[in-house]
């Protein structure tokens, strides 16, 4: 019996696909939206798409374990929506870069010249944080009904994200929840993480979110080669 040194990154293949995706999306802003199930990702997307369609060429990749329910909701607003059902990939609890690579090809990303590609990850605050998809920005959505301690319980998700959208803020009067406690818990995990309180349902601060998104698009376009 012999011991051989390997020193190989287990996530190497995912990273290779993520790099391929980034290449395919050189001229497209790609954001990866992550949250637990029911935090409001699809509602956020519906409202976001309604505000941006016409102005930008947008496509969406939907990740779920099963059903095309979300795709049906979004197809009422824009045409280019592709559903990944992870039950076809072993029921995976997250999207990986290879699944996204297949979806990008199905969406003809090389010909369609999209301005924005939005990936709605599988609802889960744990696993999606470990998988780079080749995106420009990671967005974590947390609804205030989930409790104050989620950043402490799932630190990696908040560590890797570029912005935290704190959703369902309109429910604040009905909950025994303290905004400052949430904010401090976020700070303990990532002190410089930007927090934006929104209500996708009522539209509160949605204009602010759209502004950030458009700023990112501009930054990406200015970097266009």
């Amino acid at each position, binding site marked *: 019996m012999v011991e051989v040194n390997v020193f190989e990154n*287990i996530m190497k293949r995912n990273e290779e696909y993520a790099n391929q995706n980034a290449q395919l999306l050189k001229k497209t802003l790609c954001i990866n939206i992550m949250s637990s199930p029911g935090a409001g990702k699809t509602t956020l997307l519906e409202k976001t798409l309604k505000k941006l369609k016409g102005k930008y060429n947008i496509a969406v990749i939907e990740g779920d374990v099963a059903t095309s329910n979300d795709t049906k909701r979004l197809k009422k607003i824009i045409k280019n929506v592709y559903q990944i059902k992870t039950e076809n990939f072993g029921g995976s609890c997250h999207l990986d870069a290879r699944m996204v690579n297949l979806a990008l090809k199905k969406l003809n990303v090389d010909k369609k010249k999209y301005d924005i590609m939005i990936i709605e990850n599988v609802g889960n605050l744990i*696993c999606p944080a470990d998988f780079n998809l080749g995106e420009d920005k990671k967005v974590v959505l947390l609804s205030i009904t989930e409790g104050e301690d989620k950043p402490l319980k799932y630190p990696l998700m908040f560590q890797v994200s570029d912005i935290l959208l704190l959703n369902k803020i309109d429910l604040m009067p009905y909950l025994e929840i303290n905004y400052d406690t949430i904010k401090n818990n976020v700070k303990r995990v990532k002190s410089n993480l930007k927090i934006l309180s929104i209500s996708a349902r009522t539209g509160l601060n949605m204009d602010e979110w759209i502004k950030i998104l458009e700023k990112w698009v501009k930054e990406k376009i200015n970097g266009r080669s």
Partner: protein
Amino acid sequence: MHEVSIAEEIKEIVINQLKKNNAKKVNKINLQIGKLTSIVPEALQFAFEAISKNTELENAKIEIEMIEIKAQCQKCKKEFIISEFDYECPYCKNMNLKIIQGRETIIKSLEIE
């Protein structure tokens, strides 16, 4: 379920290594996993056992060395290990930290024959 994807990747790398080294069997797989990843060692072992049944990887033991989370304070530039939920510089109490270690997912070595 996340561990199943990780186990599949390990399986592929190990099979390639067996070929490369003209070996028939792997007895032990030594991994280094960062504590900031969401990989659960027991779940990974279980997933690996399930997917390696009836392959040359069957009965291989997975040994995991957990790597501490290490950060560098962006103010005083000191480096330190971070314990649970306490992302604060122990020297100057600054909270602006850069994580420099703890997200590793590495196959370090294999015991093969």
